[in-house]
C-alpha cells in the first residue's frame, strides 16, 4: 500500500461511514478525502473554489464516485472529468446502489473505469471494497498527469 489519496464522493454520511469502515476492514490504509456532492468533488479535483489552494498536481489514486448526488450528480462529474485534459485519465470507480442498466451503460460510455454496486450485505461490501483497493491502489499503474487543467 502507499499513501496515495482516495477521493470518496458520497453524500450519505452513513454510507460514507460504512465505506470508510469497509476500507479499513479490508486493510486499505490510504488517506481518504470525502467530497459530499458533485460540485465539491470537481472543486477538489480542479483545485478551485474551497480547494483553490490545493496542489492540483497531487491527484488521487482513484475516485470512488456515487451517482445520486446533490447539485451535480455523479454522471455529470464523470462527464466533466473526462472532458478535461488534466483529469481525463483519472481512474474513476462508480460506487452506487443501483444496477439499473441505464446507469451502467451511461457510466461506462462516459468513461468510468469500473462499476461497483454497493451490496446491502456488509460482509459482501467489505469484499467488494477489498478487491477495489487491491486493483486500483496496488496493481493499477496510474497514467502520468500530462495535460494542463
Amino acid at each position, binding site marked *: 500500500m502507499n499513501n496515495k489519496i482516495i477521493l470518496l464522493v458520497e453524500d*450519505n454520511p*452513513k454510507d460514507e461511514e*460504512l465505506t470508510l*469502515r469497509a476500507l479499513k476492514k479490508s486493510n486499505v490504509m490510504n488517506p481518504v478525502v470525502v467530497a459530499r456532492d458533485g460540485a465539491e468533488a470537481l472543486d477538489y479535483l480542479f483545485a478551485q473554489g474551497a480547494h483553490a489552494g490545493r496542489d492540483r498536481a497531487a491527484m488521487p489514486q482513484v475516485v470512488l464516485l456515487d451517482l445520486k448526488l446533490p447539485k451535480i450528480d455523479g454522471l455529470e462529474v464523470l462527464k466533466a472529468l473526462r472532458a478535461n485534459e488534466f483529469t481525463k485519465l483519472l481512474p474513476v470507480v462508480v460506487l*452506487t446502489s443501483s444496477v439499473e442498466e441505464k446507469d451502467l451503460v451511461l457510466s461506462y460510455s462516459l468513461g468510468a473505469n469500473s462499476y461497483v454496486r454497493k451490496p*446491502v450485505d*456488509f460482509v459482501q*461490501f467489505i469484499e467488494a471494497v477489498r478487491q477495489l483497493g487491491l486493483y486500483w491502489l496496488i496493481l493499477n499503474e496510474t497514467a502520468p498527469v500530462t495535460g494542463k487543467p
Partner: protein
Amino acid sequence: MNDTAAPAAVVSWGLLEDVPDAIVIVGKDGRIRFANRQTLAMFGYGLEELIGQMLELLVPERFRTAHPGKRSAYFGNPHRRPMGGDLDLFARRRDGTEFPVEIALSPMSGAEGMLVTAAIRDVTERKRAEAVIRASEARYHSMLDNMLEAVQILSLDWRYLYLNDAAARNGRQVKEEMLGKTVMERYPGFETTAMFTSLRTCMVERTSRLAEFEFTYPDGTVAWYEFSIQPVPEGLFILSLDITARKRVDQEIRALNTELERRVQARTEQLQEANRELESFSYSVAHDLRAPLRSIDGFSQALIDDYAVQVDAEGKKYLSFIRESAQQMALLIDGLLALSRVTRSELHSARVDFSALARTAITRLQRNHPGRTVDVVIEEGLTGEGDPVLLAVVIENLLGNAWKFTGKREDARITFGAATRDGHPVFFVRDNGAGFDMAFVHKLFGVFQRLHGATEFEGTGVGLATVERVVRRHGGRVWAEGEVGGGATLSFTLHEKENIG
C-alpha cells in the same frame, strides 16, 4: 314471246333486257308497251299477260283509283324523276302481294307519241335492313335514355347534343331546355370549375380520362360525380355516376380515423407519461430504498464486530436477525425491480436458444452450490422466438426454482424439455423436489405469493410472477402441475394468442 303487240319496239329495246331493274314502258293511254325480263321475274307475270294491259295492274289495289290521275298529271308535265326521295312506293305482284319499290321515270318521244320509261327497283331487302337498324338504334337509344349513369354528348363548341334522363336529373334541369344549348349557358360559372378544365383538356387533346369532381349547384349544395370522358367525332362522350353517398361515407371514415388517431396519440402520450413516472419511480427505488438497508446491515455488523463484549449472545442473535431481514428486503427490492423491468422494457425479437440458456443457468447454479449433486437433463435444440434477455429470465427462474425445491433430495433430478400440443411447442421444467399442493396452484404466479415457508426454502415470491409476466408479454401461457413431495412441472408456451387471433 308474244310479238303481236309491238314487235319493232321489242327489238329496239332489247338492250333494256340486261339492266338489273325492272323496266316498264307505258304509253299516254296508260297501257304497257314493254316489260323486260326483270319485270316478269319481279311481278310474276308472263309477258303476254302484261303487254297492252293498264299500268295500274302493277299498282296495289288501294292506290289504283288515284293512280290514273297522277299518271295523266305526269304526262302533262313530263320530266326526269330519279329514284329515291321521300316517296314510299309499293308495287303489286301477280299473286296480290305488295313490295316496296323505288321508281325512276323518264319521258321519251317515239313514233306513237310520248312514252314513259319506268325503272322499278325492289327495295324489300334494303327496307328490311333499314328497319333492323332503326329497331336497334331505338333499342340503344332507350337503353341510353334509361341508364342509371348519366350520359351526355357535347359538341366541339360545348353544346348538348344528347343527354339521357339521368344526366338531366343529375343536373337538376329539363332535358329539352338543355339540348342545343352550351354548358356555359346552362351552368353559369362552369368555366371556372376543375371539371371544365379537365373536360377542355380532353376536348382539345382528344384524350379520354377517368376523374372525380365536386360539383356545386346554384343553391350551394354539393355533389360528387365520377366522370368517364371519351372523345368522339362530335365532341365528347361523358358517362357520369353520382358518388356523393360514397364520398360522404369516405369522408366520415376519414374523420373517424383522424379522431381515432388523435385518441390513440393521446392515449400513447398518457402511457408514455405513466411509463416515465414508473421509470423514475423504479430508479428511485433502486437507489434510495437500498441505502437505509445498507446502514441497517452494516451498522448491525459494526455492533457485532466492535461491541462484542457489551452485547451478549442473545443480542448478537437479534443483530443477525436484523441483518437477515435487511438482506431479505434487499432481495425483495431487487425482485420487484426485475419484475417492473420485465413490464416496462421494450421487447426485442430474435431466435432464442433455450437449450443453451438452460445449460448456462445450470452451470451457474452448480457453481453457486458446489456441494449439490443434481441429475440434469436438457433436451437439445430447443428454440423459440422472443426477447433474448427476458426469455433468459424465464429459464433462469424456472431452473432456479427446480434447483431450490430439490435441495432436500439426495437423488435430485431436473429435466428441461418440450412437448407438442395442438401444433404448439410446450416447454417444461420438471423436478422431483418438494412439489406443491394443487389446491394453491392459483397463488403460484402472484407477486409475493409463496407456498413454502422462508425457513423451508428461501425466496422472495417474485420469480414466478416475473416468469408469468414475460410469458404473457410473448403471447403465451404458463402453468404448473405438482403434488406435495412429488415434484413439480412448470410449462409455458409462446405466441399462442397471436396465432389464435
